[in-house]
């Protein structure tokens, strides 16, 4: 099976410092894949490189076999590679329904349509509403995004990405800052996503990672330390050292 997402020797240098170093990663379709590593290991940098938010200093990114290294962010989104952000990037003054409709419209290629009002694009609105229903956000559909509690805003962060109908969804610490009970609910939602969506996840909470992920890659100092199924990773001495070491430092 061709990997849906693959990198070859991906590197990013800031001056003399390697934020990503020779990362070669391969992710199968339908995978539930977690990226872990201590702070500053280059997890977010990797996602930035994959999605085109950063340009790599060397190496390539392949999406479904196609070289997308030189493509702009939005072009990768069009090809099914979608991400969320560690710190919410939302449309504060739009209602929740508007925000999601915006994302749906972009996917449907309506972004240039300027004559008919948004309200007349019923298919887009219906789809947005449906998505909100799935994510149990219907009750706040007409609220302004900024008026919502943080946990729900975090859901919208994901909703915006899902509205783009990702084939590969990169989640950057989706539960960061969310209270425990809400984060469980959030992960349930993620877990229920259909199998044709490949999920790559960055998460600090090891409980959640081990419950959810089927494969785990460990990053240290920008480089890939190891990659395997959770059971093996859990026993890996080097991984424990990395985490232990960090714990000692902290």
């Amino acid at each position: 099976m061709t990997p849906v997402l693959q990198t070859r020797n991906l590197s990013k240098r800031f001056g003399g410092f390697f934020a990503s170093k020779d990362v070669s990663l391969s992710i199968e379709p339908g995978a539930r894949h977690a990226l872990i590593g201590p702070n500053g290991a280059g997890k977010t940098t990797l996602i930035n490189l994959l999605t085109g938010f950063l340009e790599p200093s060397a190496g390539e990114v392949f999406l479904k076999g196609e070289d997308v290294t030189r493509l702009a962010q939005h072009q990768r989104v069009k090809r099914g590679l979608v991400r969320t952000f560690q710190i919410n990037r939302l449309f504060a003054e739009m209602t929740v329904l508007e925000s999601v409709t915006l994302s749906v419209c972009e996917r449907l290629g309506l972004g240039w349509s300027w004559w008919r009002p948004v309200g007349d694009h019923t298919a887009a609105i219906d789809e947005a509403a449906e998505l909100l229903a799935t994510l149990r956000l219907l009750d706040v559909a007409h609220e302004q995004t900024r008026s919502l509690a943080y946990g729900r805003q975090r859901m919208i962060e994901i909703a915006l990405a899902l509205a783009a109908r990702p084939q590969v969804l990169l989640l950057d610490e989706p539960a960061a800052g969310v209270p425990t009970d809400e984060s469980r609910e959030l992960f349930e939602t993620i877990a229920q996503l259909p199998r044709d969506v490949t999920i790559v996840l960055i998460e600090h909470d090891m409980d959640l990672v081990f419950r959810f992920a089927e494969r785990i890659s460990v990053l240290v100092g920008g480089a890939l330390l190891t990659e395997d199924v959770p059971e093996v990773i859990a026993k890996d001495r080097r991984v424990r050292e990395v985490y232990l070491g960090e714990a000692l430092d902290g």
Partner: protein
Amino acid sequence: MTPAKLDLSPLRRAAAWRPAEYAFWLLPVAAFFLFPKSLALLSQIAITALFCLSLDLILGYAGIVSLGHAAFFGLGAYAAGLMAKYGWGDPLLGLAGAAVMAAAAGFLTSFLVLRGTDLTRLMVTLGVSMMLYEAANKLTDFTGGVDGLQGVDIQPVLGMFSFDLYGKTAYWYSVAILFVMFWLARRLVHSPFGLSLRGIRQNVGRMPAIGAPVNARLVAAYTIGAAYAGIAGALLTQTTQFVSLDVMAFSRSAELLLILVLGGTGSLYGALIGTMVFMAAHHFLSDINPQYWQFWLGAALVLIVLFARDGIMGLLRKLSTRARTSS
């Protein structure tokens, strides 16, 4: 599985005309009968309102600050003026020519304002407009330089209504064009394209992550804004039958920014109401006190910023919410 629970009408009908809007557009008709002798001022209010609308499209919706928007206004003004001078005096043709000219310039310069902070954008737009100003000043043979472009001979509107001393034709013509352009802008901001511009303004970092080509959208918005400004400039030329170099001056750009912020950015009516209030205040203050009226205008601005930060539209919104909650 359409969720039956959710009432979608707030979004479905977001673009519907509200009663207050109908009432608003009766104002220009009422003004015609109430102030039949001030039509010259009223026409210029309509023109400035259109100009302000053009800035609102790029600042209020796409979030690009500009201190050089008069460049496009001026290009439109000169385009229409030169066309009329060399025999193409039909007003609507002039508007089209001005729009094309300004849009072309907007398109070319839009690439300069894609990057950078607000301050950088302010200065780049300012620089571009100052260069155009200097160019117009230098090309005396073509533009008339500081003396202004004369011999602007405008034919009757639609071949029927010629521009008269009382400014009736000029008034109806300006208001009609303003209305049509406003109506188009209103469609535009309520469309998915408009929604995407709001998205860019509210969170430019998210837009590419939902698949929107941000730069292309900004280029488009800037070009449209420039075209609007060009049309406003052309209207000024046609209703005054003269182009002065001042149409490109820095003060015009700065004043426009002021008007827009006063009215409230990001709402089309803010641009219109801001213009009405500013121009009326300017007019009355300078009539009462021709030498020192600026002091009162300045004081008013300071008070507005201190006590009504979202502009007039913000104030109106606050008032209407208060009225609703109390009743």
